[in-house]
Every structure is written in structure tokens, then in C-alpha cells.
């Protein structure tokens, strides 16, 4: 009867908070083991797009007034966050589809929501060191003084979480890996040239300002900027926090819908 006992015990542990926590910890270890090999590339991309872009923006301008330098520097953390969430996350999922491990992941004996939660946690945490280094490079290059607020912690965690969530939804919702590739490239192009991250939105034509008001990028930048140089965002960032949160929840909803669908 020992065998039955084991079966019963397994069956009874496969629900409840204990099972969830155990699954979450196992998935974290599983994801970490898979992602470890990419850590260096991860950091390189963040530095390239964060610190590299901030230096590049400076080369285009013949004269850099102090306020512009401050805008660019406080945009760096956002620029370094975007490739993690909007490029690496969906491309990792596209990669899984190509190599056939996508279905395997869903076959693991953990709730699907735990699989997603583990990805969010890991990518949010892994994104942060690159952000800090990129910011330091920006500060060194432009010699600006930041007025760092305690709100930097929730600001970075929320924006990183949002980027990972939307990227996750994109990765799962787009089933063709090549299309994923194209969309992520488009996002990078748009973010670097047509989003008011390193520049005030007032530079842009009205219609582009309207487009950006609905997209997450400008609000990510505002949330982060408010905790690095509050005087640049005099109107407060309550609505920006709200919009970033809405995109996060939206990402979760889309991901949940896609993942729960049976094929």
C-alpha cells in the first residue's frame, strides 16, 4: 500500500500555496539556468542601447545645453530597460518556438501562471544592474547632478515589470518568429527616434505627441525621470504611473488569454 500512499500524497500537494511556492522556486531555478549563458550579451545590449545611445545623441547636437544633458541622462535608464522587455523577452520566446522547447515548457508540472511569474521576476531583476551601469555612464559623460528620490525603486521595478509583461504578451501572441523579429526591430527604431525618452515631448509634432500619449514609452521615461530629476516633470507623474500600470495589466491579460487557449 506504500505505492498508493505516495500517489495520494503527490495528488494532495498539487494544489494550495505550498505547491505554488515550490513551483515558483523551481521555475526560477530553471529559468535562471537557461538564461545564465546570455547574461553577458544581455548586459552588452543594455549598455549599447542605454549608455551607447545617450553618448550618440550627444554627438548629433553641436551644443548640449545643461537641461538637454539632464534630459538625455535621465532617459538612459528607460533606454536600457526597453531592449530587455521589448526585444529579449519576445525573441527568447520566438527562439523557443523555433527550437521546439515552447511546448515543452508548458508541459512542466507547474501552474502556467507560475511559469509566467518566474519569467517576469527574473527579467525584472536581471534588467536592473544594466540600468544602473548605463545611468552611471550617462552621468559620467554629461557631468550632470541627479536628485535621486526614494521613488526610484518602485519606478524602476514597475517599468521593468511593464516592459517584461508587454514583451511576454507580444512573444506569446505573435506565433510567427520572423514577425516577432520584425516587430521588435520596429519597436527599437520607433523608441530611439520617435519617442520622447531623451527629449521633451514638445519637440514632436502634435500628432506624434498624441500617438506617444497612448504608447507606454513616454510614460516609462516620465516615471523614471521624476525620481532622478523631479523638476523636469513639474506636473507630477500620477497619470504616468497609472498608464504604465495599465500596460502591465494589459500585458498580463493578453498573455493569460493566449496561454490558456488550448490548441
Amino acid at each position, binding site marked *: 500500500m506504500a505505492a498508493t500512499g505516495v500517489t495520494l500524497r503527490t495528488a494532495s500537494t498539487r494544489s494550495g500555496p505550498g505547491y505554488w511556492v515550490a513551483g515558483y522556486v523551481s521555475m526560477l531555478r530553471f529559468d535562471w539556468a537557461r538564461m545564465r549563458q546570455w547574461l553577458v550579451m544581455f548586459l552588452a545590449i543594455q549598455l549599447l542601447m542605454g549608455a551607447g545611445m545617450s553618448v550618440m545623441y550627444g554627438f548629433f*547636437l553641436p551644443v548640449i545645453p545643461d537641461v538637454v544633458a539632464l534630459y538625455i541622462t535621465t532617459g538612459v535608464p528607460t533606454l536600457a530597460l526597453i531592449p530587455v522587455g521589448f526585444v529579449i523577452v519576445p525573441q527568447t520566446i520566438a527562439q523557443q518556438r523555433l527550437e521546439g522547447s515552447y511546448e515543452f515548457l508548458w508541459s512542466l508540472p507547474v501552474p502556467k501562471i507560475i511559469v509566467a511569474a518566474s519569467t517576469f521576476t527574473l527579467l525584472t531583476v536581471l534588467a536592473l544592474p544594466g540600468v544602473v551601469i548605463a545611468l552611471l555612464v550617462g552621468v559620467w559623460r554629461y557631468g550632470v547632478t541627479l536628485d535621486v528620490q526614494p521613488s526610484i525603486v518602485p519606478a524602476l521595478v514597475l517599468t521593468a515589470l511593464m516592459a517584461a509583461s508587454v514583451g511576454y504578451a507580444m512573444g506569446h501572441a505573435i506565433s510567427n518568429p520572423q514577425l516577432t523579429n520584425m516587430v521588435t526591430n520596429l519597436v527599437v527604431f520607433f523608441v*530611439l527616434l*520617435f519617442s520622447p525618452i531623451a527629449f521633451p515631448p514638445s519637440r514632436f509634432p502634435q500628432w506624434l505627441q498624441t500617438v506617444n500619449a497612448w504608447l507606454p514609452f513616454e510614460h516609462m521615461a516620465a516615471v523614471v525621470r521624476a525620481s532622478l530629476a523631479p523638476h523636469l516633470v513639474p506636473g507630477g507623474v500620477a497619470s504616468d504611473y497609472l498608464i504604465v500600470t495599465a500596460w502591465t495589466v494589459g500585458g498580463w491579460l493578453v498573455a493569460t488569454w493566449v496561454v490558456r487557449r488550448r490548441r
Partner: protein
Amino acid sequence: MAALDAEFKIRRGLSYWWDGYTRMVRWEFIDIRGIAVFAIVIQLVIGALFVLGVGLFFDDIPLRSAQYLTTGSFVVCLITVAMVAAPQIIAAQKMSQQYEYRWSLPVPRSAATLAWFTVALAIGLPGALVALVVGAIRYGVTYDVSAMIVPAVFAGLLTAGLIGYAMAHTLKPMVAQLTATALLFVVLGFAPINFPPENLPGWLATLNLWLPFYPMAVVVRSALLPGEAGNVAQSYLVLGAWAIGCGAAVIWAIGRRK
């Protein structure tokens, strides 16, 4: 034996080379037929949007910046296919095992190489021209095109193509792809192509005099803008040196037997 001799005789000379060249141009076009239109459209969009997007960095863009931006985008569009796309395409050919097959085709390798450069020019040119048009409309940049544009474009494209080719044929596929991406980043942001060299720190501006990217922009710009001299002669020399160096590497790589 007579038949063999006859066949042997036609397999050389200018007409044989030309025949191989035209066939390979058709071959390359058919090979990328599926994505050719798409690639040209992407180049058009990037050519136009880059010129417009960078303008947003400025409150009010100075004429000199606008001139550099539009002519720089012309150069970038022109050379990216040859220098950045080629290593990626050839890396894919190596991975899909087409690479050896292509060299087994009965055409001179120089004809096959120039055929690819021709196709690269055809894909890049529309986007490059659009960059100039958009710059003229949006920023009021005027051009003074001299006949030197022909050798300038030829020298720039040939050097860029040989750099791309040298990378593609001597490096491992993965390394070639990563290097190509890094190169694009350097071309767009760390070489004074889209902005004047005085915006760079002194050491980086000096370094760029000897790298091939800035000289490409100098020779093309001197043929497009009035009163934009720069070190044209030196730039041609630097380009020539890079072309010869990379050409030698290509000849070594595609000529050797394995």
C-alpha cells in the same frame, strides 16, 4: 579533343566574364526575389524616417547639421546593404550549406562578387535618394551635384562591399553577424557621417580619419554639397588602402582550396 578545346577557349576573355556577370546579377536577384521588394521598401522607409527622426533631436536644426544628416543618410543607405547585410546573408548561406555550391558555379569569382555589389547598389540606392529628397523638402538643404559623385559612390560602395565581403568570408557565421551589427552601430553613431566631426571628442575624430566610414562620407559629400571640401584626396587614399587590404583578404579567402 577538338570539342574540348573549343569549349576550353570560350571559358575566358571579356565576353565570358561579362556573360558570367549578367547571369550572376540575374541569379542574385532571383535568389532574393521574395524579399527584394520588401528590402527596398524598408530601405526607403528608413532613409526617410531617419532623416526626419534625427531632426526631432533639435529644437531648430542648424543648416550644417541638416546638410550632414541628409547626405550622411544617403551614404548610410548606400553602404548598409553591402557592408551590413552581406555578412548576414553569407553567414546564412554558410549555415544552410549553399555557400560551397555557389562557388561551384561556372563563372569567374570576380564576376560573381561584382554581381552581388550591383544588386546591393540596386537595393540601397532608392532609400539613399529618398533621404536626399526628404532632406531637401524638410530642411531646405540644396545640393550641387558634380560629376565626382560617380567615382565617389563607386569608391564608397566598393570599399564597403569589400569590408562586408572580407568579414563574411573570413569570419565564422555567428561572429560575422555580431560584427556586422556592431559595425552598423559604429556607422550610425560613432563616425561623423550623420553629424559634423567637430561634435566628436578630438581623439575619436582623429581615429575616424583612418577608419573607412568617415572617408566614404567625405568623398560623397564633396560631390553633393557646394563648398564642402574636406580632405577628399586623403579620403580616397584611405578608402583605397582599405579596399586593397580587404580585397586581398577576400581573394585569399575565396581563392584558397580546402
